[in-house]
């Protein structure tokens, strides 16, 4: 029974990490759209290339942070959470 409980904990942590990484798709789509719109802007006003590039870079950093949050949660669920949860389980069993 204890093995099953540990297995469920490990499985749920791995599943949670995988689900969290779905958020990693968003920044890629967002950055792609930002670049596409920036290309339109540069096409209309080529003299604004530097300004548009700078603004887009900063926007991409903001978009990328969402993916980083997901990454950190996934890392914690893979490396930290299983040990903690199993420890809590074993303490309660005793």
């Amino acid at each position, binding site marked *: 029974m204890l093995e099953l409980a540990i297995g469920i904990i490990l499985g749920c942590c791995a599943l949670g990490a995988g689900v969290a990484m779905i958020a990693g798709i968003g920044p890629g789509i967002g950055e792609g759209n930002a670049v596409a719109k920036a290309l339109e802007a540069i096409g209309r006003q080529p003299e*604004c290339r*530097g*300004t548009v*590039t700078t603004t887009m870079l900063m926007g991409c*950093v903001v978009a990328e942070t969402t993916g980083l949050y997901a990454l950190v949660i996934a890392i914690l669920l893979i490396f930290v959470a299983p040990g903690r949860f199993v420890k809590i389980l074993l303490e309660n069993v005793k």
Partner: protein
Amino acid sequence: MAVFDKIDPAVRRETGYIALCTLILSAVMEAVFLIAGRWGLPVLLGNILGAAAAVLNFLLMGLTVQKAVDREEAEAKASMKLSQSVRMVMLFAVAAAGVGLSIFNGIAVIVPLFFPRVAVAVQPHTPWGDRQDGGDGD
């Protein structure tokens, strides 16, 4: 340096700004660890790893953006998506190494990954935020 000459001036300037902010924030983080009495070699090594990954991530993103603006729209979108995926894998490897290996402090590796976001947030209040010309002289 021929390699640096190929980098767009806007990308170079912003990467420099991000690197400077990361350096300052890293020093602040080290000071916080020191004050909390938890400073050690793993914290320093973790900070170096995390900060290097954060700046490299920004530089690679800048280089992708620089190449993407010279391409067609669909091609640029695809290259940004591919770049983001590859960089995410790189950051995952760095964060996993930081948390998994005992020579690094996990917190000291993960926290610097968010320093570029902080740098962007404070940019309007710095001399870099005043420049609106893009700095490429064209």
